[in-house]
């Protein structure tokens, strides 16, 4: 009882384990999907943010730079009347327009939108003043009368520049480098133009502006050098820095001349071949630096993209591995469960057998005892009453029941032994078994029943000889007992043959009275007896036959009709 209960619980445990495993798997899958989505989103948003900031910085830096160029070109044109400056102005004015148009891509950000509006306004007002100055042919006017130096113009420029400088520093190095690149270009333009303005106007206050920007330029170049993480960017920056040093030297000399009042000499320095060639070196260096930087940023983004993909593949692989493992575990648990189920059924049938055994044992062992007890009381009574005539009859019943008890105890011992012991395999000699059985059955009478044998097995059979002897003794004994007295030639036949795979097949058949159909499923049950008037056994005979055959890993089957019965046993050889 307790055994069965325990195995049932084990079985439920297996199901519960699978359930937990599935839950764990679902949680796991959810986690993996969450990780995957999170990683993908983080990386994608990082890529987008970098791309956004990069584009934004391009626009901002360009606007800052162009606006300086516009102011200074328009001023220079108004001083010199040189068409070169007007063309530069117009050229850069177009570029600024394009850039402002590009800046509309960023209107999604409210803050940037407000700023963009601000420089749009200031930009429009500045452009209006500049074009007025250009068209009015104000060339040669003293600078203090020039509207390009007027209060309104200065105010709009302040607004404009402060708007553009609102953008915060980017924390990301390559974007910050891009910001610095624009800053350097812008400051350089400021320095050049301040020195040139001073050389035209003789106004030494330009030097103040100039001196304010020089340290800013140095700081920007230093920061850029620090952030540059490769040799190419560093060498380009060094080139720019050198050209810058040369330019500053010329500009400082020009300021010296302005201070002495020698404006024409200062102008010669500021527009001379030396200055222009250094400007060219500087501009080329900045240009190359810009290219190198953007390709680096692009490469960074690509790397990030690849990392995302790689991580995604890794996560998927991990997930598949987990799934595979889970499936493996589930299949193992399933197999284990099936095994358990089988074991459970075996145990249950063993338990049922045991229950029948203990019930029948107590009943069947007691029955002959009670009968003997009854007869002994009866004998005592008859002795008392002086009835001596039937004492011998009464005693024969005592004897018969004692014998029955003896047989029963032997059979029960045999059952217990069959559970425990396993005989060794040995060569089985069938004619020897036949002789033994013949002696047995004919000693009980039935001389008119024939025992026919035919041993045709081709493979020598190795098995449990004593068990096989008992099995055949029992089957053949039963066949003799239940022979049909009504047939002319009652017989019992014992045949052997070999199956192709070496298994032994034994057939015991007869033309006896057969087993009633309603008893077919009870034939191998414990304590089965077909007919009380014919059977004197314990009812354990066929149960033992089946048990012994199963011990030898064999099978037994039978068919029966009122014309006879046939038992077929199949046994593996040398098992």
């Amino acid at each position, binding site marked *: 009882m307790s055994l069965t209960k325990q195995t049932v619980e084990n079985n439920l445990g297996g199901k519960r384990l699978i359930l937990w495993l599935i839950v764990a798997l679902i949680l796991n899958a959810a986690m993996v999907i969450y990780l995957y989505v999170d990683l993908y989103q983080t990386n994608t948003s990082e890529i987008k943010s970098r791309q956004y900031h990069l584009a934004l910085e391009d626009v901002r830096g360009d606007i800052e730079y162009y606006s300086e160029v516009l102011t200074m070109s328009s001023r220079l044109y108004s001083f010199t009347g040189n068409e070169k400056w007007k063309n530069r102005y117009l050229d850069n004015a177009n570029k600024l327009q394009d850039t402002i148009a590009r800046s509309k891509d960023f209107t999604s950000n409210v803050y940037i939108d407000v700023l963009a509006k601000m420089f749009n306004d200031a930009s429009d007002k500045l452009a209006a003043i500049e074009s007025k100055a250009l068209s009015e042919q104000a060339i040669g006017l003293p600078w203090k009368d020039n509207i390009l130096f007027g209060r309104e113009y200065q105010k709009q420029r302040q607004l404009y520049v402060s708007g553009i400088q609102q953008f915060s520093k980017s924390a990301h190095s390559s974007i910050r480098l891009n910001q610095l690149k624009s800053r350097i270009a812008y400051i350089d333009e400021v320095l050049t133009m301040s020195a040139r303005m001073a050389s035209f106007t003789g106004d030494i206050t330009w030097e103040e502006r100039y001196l304010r920007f020089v340290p800013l330029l140095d700081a920007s170049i230093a920061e850029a050098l620090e952030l540059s993480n490769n040799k190419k960017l560093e060498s380009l920056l060094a080139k720019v820095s050198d050209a810058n040093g040369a330019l500053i030297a010329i500009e400082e000399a020009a300021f010296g001349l302005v201070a002495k009042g020698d404006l024409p000499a200062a102008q010669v320095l500021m527009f001379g071949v030396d200055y222009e060639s250094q400007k060219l070196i500087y501009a080329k260096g900045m240009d190359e630096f810009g290219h190198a930087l953007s390709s680096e940023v692009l490469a960074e983004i690509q790397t990030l993209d690849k990392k995302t993909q790689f991580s995604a593949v890794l996560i998927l692989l991990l997930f598949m591995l987990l799934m595979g493992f889970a499936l493996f575990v589930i299949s193992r648990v399933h197999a284990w469960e099936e095994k358990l189920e089988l074991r459970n059924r075996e145990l249950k049938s063993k338990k049922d057998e045991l229950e029948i055994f203990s*019930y*029948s044992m*107590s*009943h*069947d062992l*007691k*029955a002959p*005892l*009670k*009968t003997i*007890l*009854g*007869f002994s*009381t*009866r004998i005592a*009574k008859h002795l008392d009453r002086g009835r001596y005539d039937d004492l011998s009859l009464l005693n024969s*019943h005592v004897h*018969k*029941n004692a014998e029955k008890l003896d047989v029963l105890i032997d059979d029960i011992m045999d059952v217990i032994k069959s559970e425990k012991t396993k005989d060794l395999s040995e060569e089985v000699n069938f004619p020897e078994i036949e002789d033994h059985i013949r002696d047995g059955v004919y000693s009980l009478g039935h001389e008119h029943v024939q025992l026919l044998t035919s041993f045709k097995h081709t493979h020598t059979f190795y098995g449990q000889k004593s068990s096989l002897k008992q099995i055949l003794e029992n089957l053949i004994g039963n066949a003799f007992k239940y022979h049909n007295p009504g047939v002319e030639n009652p017989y019992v036949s014992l045949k052997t043959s070999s199956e192709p795979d070496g298994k032994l097949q034994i057939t015991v058949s007869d033309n006896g009275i057969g087993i009633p159909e309603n*008893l077919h499923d009870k034939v191998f049950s414990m304590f*089965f*007896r*077909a*007919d*009380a*008037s014919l*059977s004197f056994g314990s*009812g354990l005979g066929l149960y033992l036959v089946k048990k012994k055959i199963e011990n030898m890993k064999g099978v037994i089957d039978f068919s029966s009709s009122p014309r006879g019965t046939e038992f077929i046993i199949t046994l593996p050889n040398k098992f």
Partner: protein
Amino acid sequence: MASECNSILVVDDNESDRMLAQFAIEDAGVTKKIFFSNDGEDALNFMKEYDLYKKKEGDLYPPNVVLLDINMPKMNGFEFLDQYEKLNADERYQSLIVLMLTSSHSDEDKARAEKYDAVKGFITKPITEERIAEIVAGL
């Protein structure tokens, strides 16, 4: 002096036990006629063939007491009771008393036996004439 009944049917597969029952009944002197059956199936057939035995046995048939062994081949005591209850009303006997016989006392068997209306007693073997007389007196 002793009470009598029509006849008694003894159903037992063991020949010795049938003989012991016969002695006990005879000594008790409670009936003139005893019928015997080897098993439940045999007994059921006997009971079904009312007309046949009535002619042969007269007023002694049908028996109104059955001594029924539990453990028998073919059809055991309980199977017999199941089949008997399924019989048509005209095949069943009025006021039939069944006394179950068993070699070893079992509470489960006793409880099972008490569920049948006809079962009026549960006797552990060997049966004695005193027990028979007592039961027949109670009829």
